[in-house]
């Protein structure tokens, strides 16, 4: 770097442009990750060079580079907030590119002005130098081996955690389709407890007015499963669905929703079609007569079948 004084700023400028392009064009990770990482740290490198203008030892140069690279998004983001510029991807990438290019200019001006810089600070030998414990190649090999073992430990943990066994389960849900986005946004934007209470009430009102619901079945049993879903309205079987799901797969169905009469969904895992494994309902009651007419295994599922 110091043999060709301006090679570093040339590289930084190229990285800024390429990194910005890669992020803007949504290029593949193999391209975006290295270029984006370089773009992220480039402002830190250049501005620590521009501000400190000292030939710091390598480790200190690296540390101030990373530290400054972390500081710029914080101050830049706050500046954008003050200027009412939304902090989306384009803003962040633009901020980094502009800071890098400005940093290139700042460092170039600094160097053209010929600010005197001393030679890189060398450690003062106030204590005896370390003894050479062996050939450099051998130590490099051992360090490399340590890195491989360390990375291997991470890879091992990733694989091991991915293979961890958890109890399998099947989920059934029936939820009203409620558009509470406007109320939520108002609450979030205001960041105000009163607005949040109002949003909660608005969401409650929206729930009461819901006309549709989603029926969802998800298989997390670890193996493909076959299900039967029975849907009852006012105690009468109105729909039956046969569902086959691979592990991790989900089945969706949009249905009409009301709380004026009972809606009950029972899920069976085949081949057992006599006892449901899951059930959901809308909270509405059935008359005692209708409850009596239900299959015995379903009677306890109806909200008003048991007095609380």
């Amino acid at each position, binding site marked *: 770097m110091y043999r060709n004084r301006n090679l570093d700023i040339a590289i930084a400028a190229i990285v800024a442009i390429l990194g910005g392009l890669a992020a803007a064009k949504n290029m593949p990770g193999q391209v975006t990750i290295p270029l984006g990482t370089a773009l*992220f740290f480039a402002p830190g490198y250049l501005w620590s060079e521009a501000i400190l203008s000292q030939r710091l030892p390598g480790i200190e140069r690296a540390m101030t580079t990373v530290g400054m690279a972390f500081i710029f998004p914080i101050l830049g983001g706050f500046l954008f907030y003050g200027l009412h510029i939304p902090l989306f991807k384009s803003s962040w990438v633009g901020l980094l590119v502009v800071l890098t290019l400005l940093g290139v200019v700042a460092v170039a001006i600094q160097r053209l002005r010929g600010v005197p810089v001393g030679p890189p600070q060398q450690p003062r030998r106030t*204590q005896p130098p370390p003894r050479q414990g062996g050939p450099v190649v051998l130590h490099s090999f*051992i360090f490399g081996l340590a890195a491989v073992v360390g990375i291997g430990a991470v890879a091992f943990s990733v694989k091991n955690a991915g293979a961890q066994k958890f109890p399998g389960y099947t989920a059934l849900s029936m939820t009203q389709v409620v558009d509470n986005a406007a109320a939520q946004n108002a609450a979030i934007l205001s960041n105000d407890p009163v607005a949040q209470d109002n949003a909660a009430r608005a969401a409650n009102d929206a729930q009461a007015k819901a006309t549709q619901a989603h029926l969802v079945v998800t298989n997390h049993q670890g193996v493909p499963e076959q299900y039967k879903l029975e849907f009852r309205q006012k105690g009468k079987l109105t729909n039956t669905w046969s569902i086959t799901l691979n592990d991790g797969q989900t089945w969706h169905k949009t249905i009409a929703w009301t709380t004026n009469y009972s809606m009950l969904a029972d899920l069976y895992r085949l081949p057992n079609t006599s006892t449901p494994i899951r059930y959901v309902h809308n909270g509405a009651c059935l008359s005692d007569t209708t409850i009596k007419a239900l299959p015995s295994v379903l009677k306890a599922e109806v909200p008003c079948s048991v007095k609380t």
Partner: protein
Amino acid sequence: MDGSLGSRAAVRRPSRAERAPEASVFSRVPISVIALSAAIGVLISSMGYADGRAGAGSSSGPGIALYWLGQVLILLPIAGRLISRRQMSNGSTITLLVILTIAEYLLKVNYSPLGFGFNDEFLHWRGTTNMLESGKLFELNYGLPIGTHYPGIEEVTAALISATGLSVFEAGLVVAGAAHLLYILFLYLAFCVAIRSHRIAGIAILLYYSAPALTSFNSMFIYETLALAFFGMCIVAGLRSAIEKSPSDRRRWFIVAVLCIFATVITHHVTSYMLTAFLILVAIASRVTGSRNTAARFGILATISALSVIGWIAFIARDTISYFSPTVVGMVASLKNLTNGGSSGATSTSSSPFGNLALEIVGLLLITVLISIGAWQAWKRHRRHPWIMGMAIGGTLGWIASLGIRLGTADGQELAGRAATYIYIPVCVLAALALTRLVNSSPVRRFGSVVTAFVVAAVTALVIDGLANGWPPYWERLPGPHLVAAFEASVDPEEVDISNWSLAELGPGWRIASDQGIYPVLIGYGGQDPLQQISWLYATDKWTTALQGRASGQNVQYVETDTRLTKTLSPNGVYFPGDTTTPTKPLPLANLTKFNHIQGVARVYDDGTITFYDLVSLGYVPKP
């Protein structure tokens, strides 16, 4: 001092006190071999994790043994080399500290390598996701309302994600890991300037690893982790701005220090207060010791920091005061009660295994002794040195305050653990001064390598004490099967899937009563607003008018129940977030199933273990 900082303070030749004790077996071990030992240690500890995941969790004897064996392989050679090696360069010391920091961070990553597992990380996952989706700062975060006003880590992570396309988890690991390493190294550089010996500075950092939160909370993807990096950088920049020869260089470092102050203030509340306190302390110590330039420089920095903190609270983060008020009032009340002869209400730590408790008590005693010797050394040998005197005053007072909080206040154990991050900075410097002085004293030197071995073992035990009594607690030392209401041990794929389901099917922001286990995941991945102190909802087997009124008054919209709460007690002591009463027996099943039979309460989710009820499907909470 080897002068890597190029400071005037660093020109002193090594004194007799800076010499290492007799060489031990570790002094001849090359650093590359120590790096390999640490890497093997990480692998072996990770195998311990794997043994826990195989089914037994933290009750797996072999798993626990593997974990601690790995830790010993990491710590012992590094401690041995730092303490006993007679000749070691600044670069070697830095390399050892980098190895130690990376090894411990990899162990933190390997605990939960597929996604964030630690509760606070979910909150910042949500904060970052909100920022990426909305393009706004200060976006509401239900789980951490105060955090919305300190968006530093979210900004940095969002910028990295935007540039690279990494996920929040991947970018979070990079930011947290880099910030943690940065903090340790800047602290080391600061110690080098303050102590004037890279060897003692290295030992001080090693001792700093006995701070309980260092390898957990201070390396998680949370705002404090990043703020600490700025804290360390600011200290170094401040010191350099005071000691550089050239006025131009002093000005330049001063600019860096000011930038660090601003970044700290935007990133984390407590760290910015601690930074201000530190700057004030050094300014006062400099004035007392006659270093007027340093006093003036640090005085200006302290003023800028104080004004920034006040301005931030006044104009941006007004709720900071209400956030801290209960903690401060509680601490004051407990201490007042204690001085009046009453009970402090301090929680008992008797639930920890005896070994952990014994280690903790011995560790506290050892550090107290070392501080006393270190403070005496500071007065005897460095009384004209502003930073060492500042650390002596700050360390001694901080340690006494820490002991007071630990023993005298409710939640004192946790508060003292979190405060240790800051209090241990001067404490470990004093302890390192004392330790070096002790092992170099002529009576001790007579016993040579035996003493060295004893000191290395004691320091390693001290660091293990920090790990054992830090986070995660002993009952989730290893990852493993699900435990009820037990922080990380309650975060299974089921909780993650349900939280994702809640966001997809319900939308964000619903007020949900839930147990402690799924609570942080619902906030993070679910974007929901789970409620605290809602155990009353689960306390009876009947739906009563009183319950209905309370649920309606608190706007409870959904209720989550988990049948596993009816089978075992929580190792954490409580089932529900914000609870203070510890149940003595599992919840009766009827307390959970009562929601099945309330007219107007919809049962909307059922997976056999966890059930969600919609209390307001009618638009209001129904009466019995």
